């Protein structure tokens, strides 16, 4: 064909000419194609540029294509309806106009394919402009549908195009997070969001079925990123922004109803969470679960299975699941048997070391805020926390010591833990059973908080002072622990460094003569290490 010849020539040209030349070339060609049908074959050259090596020419080509096909769509110069095979084009009996529109429709389809392929290009700029171009097509297609409206019940939406885009975004090979965050802009539009969620559900289901229970970390990560980027509207009146303006009445359109949105949202999340998740994904989901997922789900209790499963995993994941469970218990009447027992068993030495310490103690504070809890339970919590405090870093101690004091204040009958004058003269071993799983059986109420007495000798002055609280009757006012939840050791160091700046610094009076000389009484470093 003549077209192939031309292609060769033009590719030669593009090699010879500079980048500027190619841009001018593309622009002029696009102009020519738009101007008259004679130059229709130039579209091949433009598409050729899409596969170019050079980034600039690819971007130029994307822009050119965008302009070209948008104009064509506007002119309704593309074939509408079911498209036959390209080979059939010559064979079939069509008028010249039809032939041209079919030809162009084919070129349009191949252009969309090429653009989708560009999603896996290494340059973000190209990915981004490809995505933008596709979304532009989508909006134009919405306006000037390529299908007969009768078949799709009056509501035109470029479903296939969006489905293809979503499919590409949920790539199982590549982390698409940057592109997804770009796509978030389009997710603000109600119809795009609705259809995206629908397609995600289908996509996840098909991919994960294929995986047969195995993990697909990258795919799941992409799916999670896309899902978590969805901002659900709060009420029906918020649904105002659409990619495609519908001429028909909106009432029957699913994408215009909040209920439908919530349903689809719920289905997509449940579909996503149905499959086995990697550990880090669990944490990520649980972190956002309570405030960006649960409120938008029509029947949140459906999340119960997932949450209870997560709660049973143990460790940090259990801690995070607490938050979601709390929402369910608190707002949706979930009855969770042995909740406190499980919470009690969550208290492990690692509680003080994990990242989610602040969140956990915030929730624990909420759970234990009820004054109707039995004394044995509160005593068990208090005793266990104080036992664990023996291994805690100072920042956590600054949090947990007031926490313990607050618990005792809230439940005055727990006061025997720090004040038992009746048995003053009978020294006894600690009756508390650390290994007992059931808080009712652990005999915490018979014990005393010797741990806090130990911590009065803690090396950090603030901790020691906090532990000294129990020496006197506690003041009725509770300590506010909210500002201590986030405190870190670095902050403590910084605070200590800033203190006492104006007072003279006490000095060591034992003159130092050697590096390994003992300080503060005994020589330890010098005994075990040598200057080598």
């Amino acid at each position, binding site marked *: 064909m003549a077209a192939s010849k031309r292609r060769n020539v033009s590719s030669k040209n593009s090699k010879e000419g500079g980048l500027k030349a190619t841009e001018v070339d593309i622009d002029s060609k696009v102009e020519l194609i738009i101007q008259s049908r004679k130059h229709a074959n130039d579209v091949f050259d433009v598409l050729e540029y899409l596969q170019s090596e050079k980034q600039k020419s690819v971007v130029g080509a994307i822009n050119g294509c965008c302009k070209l096909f948008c104009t064509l769509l506007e002119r309704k110069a593309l074939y509408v309806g079911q498209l036959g095979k390209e080979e059939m084009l010559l064979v079939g009996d069509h008028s010249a106009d039809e032939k041209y529109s079919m030809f162009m429709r084919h070129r349009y389809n191949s252009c969309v394919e090429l653009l989708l392929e560009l999603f896996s290009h290494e340059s973000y700029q190209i990915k981004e402009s490809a995505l933008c171009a596709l979304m532009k097509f989508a909006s134009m297609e919405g306006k000037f549908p390529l299908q007969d409206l009768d078949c799709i019940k009056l509501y035109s939406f470029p479903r296939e195009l969006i489905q293809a885009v979503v499919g590409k975004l949920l790539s199982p090979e590549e982390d698409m997070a940057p592109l997804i965050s770009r796509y978030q802009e389009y997710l603000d539009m109600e119809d795009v969001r609705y259809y995206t969620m629908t397609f995600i559900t289908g996509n996840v289901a098909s991919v994960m079925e294929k995986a047969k229970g195995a993990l697909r970390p990258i795919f799941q990560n992409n799916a999670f990123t896309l899902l978590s980027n969805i901002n659900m509207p709060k009420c029906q009146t918020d649904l105002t922004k659409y990619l495609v303006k519908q001429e028909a009445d909106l009432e029957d359109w699913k994408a215009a109803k909040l209920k439908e949105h919530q349903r689809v949202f719920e289905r997509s999340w449940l579909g996503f969470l149905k499959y086995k998740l990697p550990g880090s994904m669990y944490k990520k989901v649980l972190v956002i679960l309570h405030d960006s997922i649960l409120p938008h789900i029509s029947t949140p209790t459906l999340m119960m299975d997932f949450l209870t499963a997560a709660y049973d995993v143990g460790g940090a994941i259990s801690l995070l699941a607490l938050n979601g469970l709390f929402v369910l218990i608190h707002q949706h009447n979930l009855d969770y048997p042995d909740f406190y027992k499980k919470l009690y068993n969550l208290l492990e*030495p*690692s509680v003080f*070391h994990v990242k989610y310490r602040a969140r956990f103690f915030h929730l624990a504070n909420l759970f234990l805020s009820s004054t109707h809890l039995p004394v044995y339970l509160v005593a068990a919590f208090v005793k266990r926390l104080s*036992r664990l405090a*023996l*291994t*805690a*870093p*100072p920042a956590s101690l600054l949090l947990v010591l007031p926490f313990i004091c607050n618990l005792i204040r809230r439940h005055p009958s727990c006061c025997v*833990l720090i004040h*038992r004058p009746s*048995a*003053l003269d009978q*020294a*006894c*071993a600690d009756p508390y059973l650390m290994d007992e799983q059931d808080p009712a059986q652990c005999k915490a109420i018979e014990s005393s908080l*010797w*741990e806090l007495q*130990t*911590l009065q000798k*803690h*090396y*950090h*002055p603030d901790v*020691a002072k906090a532990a000294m609280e129990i020496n*006197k*009757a506690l003041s009725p006012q509770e300590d506010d622990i909210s500002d201590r939840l986030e405190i870190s*050791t*670095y902050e*403590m*160091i910084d605070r*200590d*460094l800033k*203190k*006492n*700046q104006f*007072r003279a*610094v*006490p*000095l*060591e*009076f034992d*003159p*130092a*003569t*050697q*590096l390994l000389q003992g*300080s*503060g*009484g*005994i*020589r*330890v*470093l010098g*005994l*075990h*290490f*040598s*200057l*080598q």
Partner: protein
Amino acid sequence: MMGKPSKKKNISDKVRKAKTCTEIKNNPFEVKINRTKFEILGRKTKNDVGLPGVSRSKAINKRKETLLKEYKTKDKANKFIDKRFGEYDTTMDPEEKILQRFSLERLRTQDKKDMYNLNEEEELTHYGQSLAEIEKLNDVVDSDDETDEKGLLSAELTASHFGGGGLLKRKTPGEKDDGGNQRAKSRQELIEELIIKSKQEKRERQSLKEESQVLTEKLDQDWKSIHGLLAHKNTPKADQEEDRPKLDEYDMMVRELGFDMKAVPSEKLKTPEEIAREEKERLQQLEADRLRRMLGDVGEDCNKAQTHVSADDINDGFILDKEERKTLSYHNAKWNINEEGAKIDGEETGDDGESEDEEESNEEGEDEGEGSEAEEDSHSDLESEEESEEENEDEKEDEKDEEPAAKPPLSDAENVLAEAAKVELPYTFKIPETYSDFKGLLQGHPADHQCIILARTRACNHPSLGILNKVKLQKLFGFLLEYVGELATRSPPELSTIDKLIPQLYDLCQLFPDAASMVLQTILRDKANSMEQVLEEKGRATFPQLDMLIYLKITALLFPTSDFRHPVTTPALLYISQVLTKCPVTSLEDVTSGLVLCCLAIEYVSFSKRFCPELVNFLLGLLHLAVPDKTSTDYSVVPPFRQSGKSSGLLVLSSLESSQTWSKKTLPLSATQKLKLTSDLEADHYRLSAVATCLELLKCCSSLYSELPSCSQIFQPITSLLSKHLPITTYPAALQEVHGEILAAISMCQTSHPPLVFEKKKPIPLKLFTPKIVQVLDYGKKRGCSKAEREEERLKHKYKKELKGALREVRKDTRFLAREKLNEVMGRDLERKRKVKQLYGSLATQEGEWRALKRRKNSRH
């Protein structure tokens, strides 16, 4: 003149006032009583009774004297200056005043007589000394006969020495009498007589002087002839006197006494027991301080005086001494005399140079004697051979005397080295201003030399020698620390050099505690900050480099670790704890770093026996690394360790045989950075050493924390690990022994305690009727709490009061002036009316007369 009548009025006024005052006070219509609302016991009020009439009249009088006068003289350029003697002096008696005025008048008229008084001509003076006398004295060498004249007070002498007494003389009573007696003579005669008299006197005086001069010259010559016989003994002195005739012996003595050192009353000689006792007391005092701070008694006044004596004063003392004035004092039962001070000023410069030479040659001599490989001394050309052996020894003794008692005795070899180093190095150094300067100063010298350079730099730039030195020396500490850090980061780390630099750091820190603490705080903040950033990014951090470990150790050396709260050591310990909880152990280097930090943590808390949970956790974690089977553990390790996983078998021995060949060795500090283990056997040995250290540290911990109430709970996981999981049977015997000891120590812990109770409340004291004492302020209520605030309040109040008073006064002034103006206008009007009336009157009479005349004319006609 205005003065007299007004004065009279004043006197009478006074009299009247004095009389009326009592009358007024008794007059109930004059007195206004300010009623008080409340009676306050013991308060004296100034203003309870007022005399408004009196005070008003007073104010009006005052205005009349001041304001009115000003008003009257307004717009008038000329003014009278009353120069009458004592006119406005109210303290003077009027009679006295008149007398004085009279005498002044008399003096003025008498002064005119001088014009003709030839005998008593004015003497010209210069600085109160008669010029004539000065001229005369220049001729005669008066220093010679001063001794003869001592004690005589002639008129001439006093006149010459104490300034012209011309006036005095004139007023001697004899003269006056003369004037009085001979007043009868005629003026002409009197003048002639005076002329003759004066001329005669002059002539006599001149002849007398000539005579005496001749005599003295003769005496001089005589003296010279005898002088030759006497002169043998003190020729040089005479020469000297001839050279510098101005220098009087007496003057010199005075000056010497003035500038010379004085024997300061020194403390009495102490017996060794006394000295020991004092030292003990000092240490006890310091220890008590430390305990107080450890218990966290806030409100501490920790500005204890720095009584520290440098640990290596030997190096710097001799430089300092030249600058400082020495005092005569006893020290260590020996006279400590500055020899130069006793010598005469003139010789001082030369002496100085000599003494320097002496020292240098002294050291040089010793140096050669020891045969060390010292480089050629640049100063050796100054060396003089005549120095006696004795002097050398004296000097040595002096140096030793200056050594403080606290100084640890240097070994002989070190001494030699130090001496050798001293010879090579210059004696003064400029303080480096930047770190690169500082490095340049120290680079290329061995460790001992670096110490000496630092000591000398410090001595030359002692803060007492210049204001700027302090700031510069403060910087030096920072440079030194940075240098230490750099030494520690080199590979291999130059730890022995750092070791040598420690005393310098300590001394600098003692000099500038604030600067030193600032530097260490900055380092801590930076390191903690960088670790925090890594933690935020990755969630875990790596163990700090060796330089940070060294810094932490230095912190412990320079500052007390036992304080309840210390601005440097508390954050440092927090940093250690942060590292021990956040840095996962992934290699044997990490194990070593962790062990170093554990050692440091133990040292930090050892004195105060404070509880450090991270320490126990970390040791447990390290031992967990040595447990081969990690599946069935009944203890749980705390982050950064994991129950199982990568590098959790780091300390498990690869072969059991290696424990037989193992022997206990100390671990090298450099192993925290890079560990070179060539074979499995070596690695196993290293593992065993680490485990051994770990066990030793645990032993330390168990003894430290045996007192704590929950000791057994703290060590419960460790007990279970040690007794059930650690493959102790495969370890060498030494380790098994330590293992047994730890278990025994832990089992010794008391497990039963009495239950907790609150502290007993102090009884609330009964209310007592002691008066509440409140500070009396000159403004109403007590406002503000700080002293500055109260002072400000007081000033504000005072200002307000003054402003009000001033406004009132101004108002009164204007009212007064207005009244005066009105009076003036009225007066003028009256005058005019009077004049008009007069005119009318005169016109009327004129008219009357004219009419009468007319009538008369008419009647004539």
